[in-house]
């Protein structure tokens, strides 16, 4: 199954990954190979089969609504590339 470069550009935008012009053809080719592999699934009859999202089909356990973690805001902020006055800094979003 081929994946055209426009589709790859759209996926790159959705995934927020910059793909250079030079590698676009190569990425399209490789993605096509992977999708060809997974296309084998289309031949399987799965009528009436419920999808399985969790291997053991355990129910999500609910925790008691109580704070168990301590406040480590400063430590987590210290990991960021840029912060100021306790806020994460990013380039200007609105003019």
């Amino acid at each position, binding site marked *: 199954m081929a994946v055209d470069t426009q589709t790859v550009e759209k996926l790159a935008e959705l995934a927020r990954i910059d793909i250079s012009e030079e590698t676009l053809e190569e*990425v399209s080719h490789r993605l096509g190979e992977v999708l060809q592999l997974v296309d084998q699934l289309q031949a399987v009859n799965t009528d009436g089969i419920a999808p399985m999202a969790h291997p053991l089909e355990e129910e999500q356990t609910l925790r008691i609504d109580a704070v168990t973690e301590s406040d480590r805001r400063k430590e987590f902020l210290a990991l960021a590339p840029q912060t100021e006055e306790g806020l994460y800094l990013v380039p200007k979003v609105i003019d």
Partner: protein
Amino acid sequence: MHQLTIAEIILGLRRKVFSSTELTRHLLDRIQQLDSGFNSFITVTEERALTQAKAADQRLAGGEAPALCGIPIAHKDIICTSGVRTSCASKMLDNFVPPYDATIVEKLNAAGAVTLGKTNMDEFAMGSSSESSYYGPVKNPWNTSCVPGGSSGGSAAAVAALLVPGSTATDTGGSIRQPAALTNTTGLKPTYGRVSRWGIVAYASSLDQAGPIARTAEDAAYLLSAMAGYDPRDSTSLNRPQSDFGKGLNNALTGLKIGIPTEYFGEGLNPRTAACIQEALREYERLGAQLLDISLPHSKLAIPAYYVIAPAEASANLSRFDGVRYGYRCQTPEDLRDLYRRSRGEGFGEEVQRRILVGTYALSAGYYDAYYNKAQQVRRLIKQDFASAFEQVDVIMGPTTPAPAFKLGAKSADPVAMYLEDIYTIATNLAGLPGMSIPCGLVDNLPVGLQIIGNYLDEARMLNIAHRYQQATNWHTASAIAV
């Protein structure tokens, strides 16, 4: 000292033949002298290790100490370690130093284990060869022109090179068992949920599971006993009674029913690998087990299902790496969109980008039902195959990998060929079952692994089955290293 197993080190420490500090110093020196040839470590934590070893020696001198007290280990670099870089072998996290320990690190620290460092791996655990690391490929100690397998190649190579007696690793599609098979080590992927995933960087959350790599099943039992257990911080953690995984190691195997899936012995399996597996099965017959042919008819669909589900989950999990809160940020971004796109484009390697794009495709409008939903339905069929098989047999056995270790670079340009390396291991992850790989032979002086697949929460029995084989054979004692 570097040739000792964990069980032998436990005795040596208690009999005061050597101290944990002496052993730790010895292994740190070996890493410094030898690891440039294997590239199995990303970070060596010398100072911390010696401090932990000193504390372990004091604890041992005081009498009551847990079995793992003073035992040197290494952690795969996807497992968060407080104050120690946790890079996932990615440029994206090259500068990431977590302020907390993963639950399994907490548990092993509490047991007195000594951490020598963080091991190399495929970037974000995506791979079957440990070549996609930002820090360069890991080399197989049995033949340094070959891969050690992936993604936990560093954890396996460090054990095989006698740099550390045991390590932690993770397995999303075979990443504990496959490198264990290719390096002549013993690797165990527990039942999904048996070991907490809290503090382990998520790749595909419904498949990822941490476990040990060691030289023997007995050593793996020691490590798993310390690692496993319910963790309220991981909502997928199983709240089941904890086993002592070493307790039944010597149980007899008389009457054990071993299922042999016909699908695991067909086209694509190296004939000499197959011969090693057949000989291992004959050994199990001599130990009193009965071999039964079984069928896992949907097993050929495990790889296509995996390469929808895992990338889909990865595309969601890796969305957190956006250059804002931690990790790599591109230089001089023009705007927020540019910051996201370039940080991720420059920070992630080729294979990680490819899987994110495949996952984005599978989850995008118009394709969700045809890919993601379909794959989850096939996943149920795969699980049902195993359920039917376990109505007839106690365990399933077959090859871990289709062939021994391949040459570095041989499959780097062909992702689909690389994906097929996990053909016998992926189905157990989709079903959430436990799986092991134990050494069972050599082909051209490269190791072959026998895979043991157990029923849910049957790790203790699997370790017993592996241990009895290791009592009867000596493949696991074969070493890549002369001295």
